């Protein structure tokens, strides 16, 4: 864990993001002291967990040089599918497994169409985004689901098990969704930064031609990252469903941009080869701080959109500027 912190502090991007979070936090706190309250910080970190989980999955997809635009739809579909079959009488445990499996299968399909048929992942996942959203509408009849009020209502025992997944508060009132995020972040950090798998992913993204020439299992790895990405989106959808106790077919549609923004602000490049798990988590945290702080101070109708969009553009501009500077320094 120490090495994570050491690397993070050495990484100017992450250091910059952390400094920005502190500065923004100070400004928000000065404006409204509630911002710095434990209650608010826990709520803020909880609310970023689903975005964070999806961003972790997307980080792997992006580092290998691909894109997945279908994650928002998968988030909504997995929750809706779980809810639908649950209220139709299936026990909650298999229903949850079916929901997660749906995310994995859609991720696998994205990979199959992209790798076997040769369609660029941008197009495949753009299409899949619409297909999956359509499926959500189809199975739900365009209506939301609240299992507690379904006809007949969900079994109270199963309902409490399901709600516990996303609603439980642990010691010091820590929301369980935060633990899900931390746990997933550790797994993904190990996977990306401490295994041959992660090293190869970065190599494939940096230079796909060389990776194929070196006979790296590019196709297999892409299948793995797309499938994982779908699974993470499904998990995030399920946890939010559990926390709120209800879901609707449009859920997840607005998450695509913030999730991409978190990964990019965290230092990933869309061309692949470069991304860090700590960067992604800190990127998600920055967006959560902006979202939460702007809500607290009630700054105005469109401020969130402007700030989040602006932060994303600024992060990419900064990245471009620093890499240009570095390459010039290298040439000198």
């Amino acid at each position, binding site marked *: 864990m120490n090495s994570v912190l050491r690397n993070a502090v050495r990484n100017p991007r992450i250091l910059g993001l952390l400094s920005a979070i502190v500065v923004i936090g100070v400004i928000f706190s000065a404006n*409204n002291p*509630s*911002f710095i*309250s434990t*209650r*608010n910080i826990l*709520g*803020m970190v909880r*609310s970023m967990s*689903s975005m964070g989980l999806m961003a972790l999955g997307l980080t792997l997809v992006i580092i290998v040089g691909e894109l997945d635009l279908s994650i928002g739809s998968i988030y909504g579909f997995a929750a809706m599918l779980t809810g639908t079959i649950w209220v139709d009488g299936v026990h909650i445990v298999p229903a949850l497994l079916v929901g997660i499996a749906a995310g994995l299968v859609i991720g696998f399909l994205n990979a199959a169409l992209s790798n076997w048929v040769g369609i660029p992942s941008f197009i495949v996942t753009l299409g899949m985004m619409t297909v999956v*959203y*359509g499926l959500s*509408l189809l199975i*739900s*009849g*365009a*209506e*939301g689901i*609240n299992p*507690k*009020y379904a*006809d007949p209502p969900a079994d109270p025992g199963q309902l409490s098990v399901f709600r516990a997944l996303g609603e439980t508060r642990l010691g010091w009132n820590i929301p369980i969704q935060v633990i899900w995020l931390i746990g997933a972040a550790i797994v993904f950090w190990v996977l990306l930064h401490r295994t041959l798998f992660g090293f190869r992913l970065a190599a494939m993204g940096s230079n796909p031609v060389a990776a194929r020439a070196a006979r790296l299992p590019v196709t297999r790895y892409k299948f793995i990252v797309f499938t994982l990405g779908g699974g993470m989106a499904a998990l995030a959808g399920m946890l*939010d469903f559990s*926390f*709120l*106790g*209800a*879901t*609707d*077919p*449009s*859920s*997840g*549609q*607005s*998450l695509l941009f913030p999730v991409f923004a978190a990964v990019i602000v965290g230092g990933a490049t869309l061309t692949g080869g470069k991304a860090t798990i700590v960067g992604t988590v800190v990127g998600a945290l920055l967006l959560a701080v902006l*979202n*939460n*702080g*702007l*809500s*607290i*101070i*009630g*700054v*105005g*109708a*469109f*401020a*969130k959109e402007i700030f989040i969009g602006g932060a994303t553009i600024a992060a990419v501009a900064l990245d471009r500027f620093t890499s240009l500077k570095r390459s010039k320094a290298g040439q000198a």
Partner: protein
Amino acid sequence: MTTIRRKLFVLIAVFFAVALVAAACGDSGEEATPEPPASAPEPPPPAPASTETTASTPETTAPASDDMSGPPYSVEYEWGTFKLSDRIAGKLANEESLNLILSIEGTGIAIFGAAMSDGWQRGIDYEAEEHGYPLAGRVIGPLQTDIPAQVAEIDSLLDADAIDCLAFEAHEPGPYVDIINKAVDSGIPVFGVNADSPDSKRFAFFALDELASGTLAGRMTGQWALDNGVEFEKAGLLTGSVEGPWAQNRMKGFMAGITEVLPDIEFVNGPNTDIESQGWVPADQYASSEAWIIGHPDVDIIFHTDQGVEFVAQVIADQGLHGEMYTSGFNMNPQIADYIRDGIVVVTMVQGFSNQAYNGATACANFLLGGEIYSGHDILDPLAATQENVDSVDWTKPENQ
């Protein structure tokens, strides 16, 4: 390379300049673009509604028909004469089935889409039986709000002679004027439901009066506080769509209504100041409501313009503020009903989407088959759901939404 880029840039700049000039000088159409109305177009969002709307009887007075015994083949309106198309008159003469079409901004908008479809179908089924005449109908529209797609779909169906009566729900008033006028000019009766395009030639409009509904919500909330000895000193506003005229009117109405009863109440924000748009994604609505409530612990009553009232109530419950902070709003579902029973939600105004669509279908059928002439804005009152009446309706049924 730099020169090429510069040239490219200049070319693009010139292109845009020319496009702008062309657009500015171009013919903007015969009809002037209408001003958005001061009152209420309707919500994009997913929202429940009610059953018990007290629908007023459609006005049948203003315009005149030259043949009231059969279908009104020719009717005088303020804007001129409507003449039923020969095609539809022929269908009526031959007792052929009529296609009644309702176009809404988002068929996939949760609750809203389903409730509108339910009401439209109920209206058609009822009138088909009532008149003993074959009526067919469906609800059309994009999945989510997409005005150009909605207008284009209506246009295609008009060109294909596939509409015998049109009802519409307009996300914004202006963009629908031309297509509605095209339909009316080609002899097709047109009615508005839920959200209007008042500068068009549509015959009549069936919906809430948003300002009055907001005022009623405010008045009832204030009165509840007085009756129960609860002190409301500070109030706040939240909304899913701050830019919506319907939301603005609900907020203005609420402020006016509660101030009538509690003149000293202070609002920490206003419809246009220090207010954010939460959108319609449940997780986002919860998170932003949570942050706002934590940041405003001194607020006693929060008015939410739409079904976001559910998440305000959920945050109040989760934060242990039950009995210290209250909320009122619009729309209904079983969860909101529970929060009313718990005493967290004071009042919520149930709009009755299904009922609005039902009225549109009824107007279409009665105009074509019964010779009834409609005009103006028919105000459908909302049901104000409180602890007193929350158990009187089954909120899981689509016809109640």
